[in-house]
């Protein structure tokens, strides 16, 4: 079912990491298995506002990111754990491995958690991440994105993905986004600018719905 091509040569790291053996059919008992359940205890008060996790405010463009988590039947997935992480406004991650010579921001860690509400909605406040270089190919830059990890209701409704911002000029050059070979499916990774949710004099807003697909059993 996956729209993503896992052995995608333009993304070099797939070469020695994508599974080499043909995948076996999913064990039948896993198809109907409900996944782990997370409660309010895994979420702390400041987890839904990445701009309020330090003494001062981070630099950058303040944004609200929100949307709905849905099953592929269109029904909301409630009380689901969503974890996010991202670079700061300068395009730098708070991580030892990131050597991009852009400044760290002492007021930004770049991690958040939310549980979806009774209608499958999520919402958090952050700053818009910057683009950053990586060494996949000469002059390679990642378009700005926020990483998402999502646990659906069923065990197989597990998704790790990235949300992009509309109109980014780096889209055609990014092998990770383009590992999704179908243009229509790629669009599903790009948030919509949402003027209605913008808070005047405070923050811009983006809306991004997430749909958790499951492999039909026996296909």
């Amino acid at each position, binding site marked *: *079912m*996956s*729209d*993503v091509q*896992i052995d995608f040569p333009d*993304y070099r*790291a*797939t*070469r*020695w*990491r*994508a*599974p*080499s*053996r043909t*995948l*076996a*059919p*999913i*064990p039948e*008992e*896993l198809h109907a*298995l409900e*996944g*782990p359940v997370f409660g309010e205890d*895994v979420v702390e008060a400041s987890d839904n506002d990445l701009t309020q996790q330090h003494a001062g405010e981070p630099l950058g463009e303040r944004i609200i990111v929100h949307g709905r988590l849905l099953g*592929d*039947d269109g029904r909301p997935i409630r009380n689901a754990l969503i*974890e*996010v*992480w991202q670079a700061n406004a300068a395009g730098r*991650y*708070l*991580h030892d*491995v*990131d050597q991009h010579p852009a400044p760290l921001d002492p007021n930004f*860690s*770049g*991690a958040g958690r939310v549980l979806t509400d009774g209608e499958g909605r999520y919402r958090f406040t952050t700053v818009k991440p910057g683009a950053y270089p990586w060494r996949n190919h000469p002059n390679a830059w990642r378009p700005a994105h926020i*990483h998402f*990890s999502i646990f659906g209701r069923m*065990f*197989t409704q*597990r*998704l*790790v*993905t*990235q949300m992009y911002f509309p109109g980014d000029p780096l889209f055609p050059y990014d092998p*990770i*986004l383009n*590992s*999704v070979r179908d243009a229509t*499916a790629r669009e*599903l*990774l790009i948030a919509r600018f949402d003027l209605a949710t913008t808070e005047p004099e405070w923050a811009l807003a983006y809306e991004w719905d*997430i*749909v*958790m*697909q*499951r492999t039909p059993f026996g296909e």
Partner: protein
Amino acid sequence: MTGTPSQTVGPYYTIGLCRRRDHELAADGVALTGRLLDGQGEPMWDGVVELFDVETRTWGRAGTDADGRFAFVVPRGARRLEAFVFARGLLRHQLTRIYLDGGAGAEDETLVAQRKDTAEGGGFEFDIHMQGDRATLFFEH
């Protein structure tokens, strides 16, 4: 509705996914350790493994270290664990299973953990090979 496509967890997942110590599925359990290795036998130092024990409905998560090693404490007596593997270079996470009970019913010999006895009381070892002669069997999901 069409599902949202997967994208790689990338090299910086620890920021979002390893803020807590989630490696214990059971407080009074047994150790399960192993290494995550790429097609050249090199350790994948930037992977993350999630385990789920269906019988006790317990879940855990651990990132890999510089040697590609992950370490869990799993329920004593667990027979089989379902495992997801995430890493930079994996555009979608992969599903495998770890048999702890000698492997009766295992779909493949690569899914059987090795019992090891140590001064601390023993446990299990299970390496995950993405490719190569000993490539781990992964499942559609």
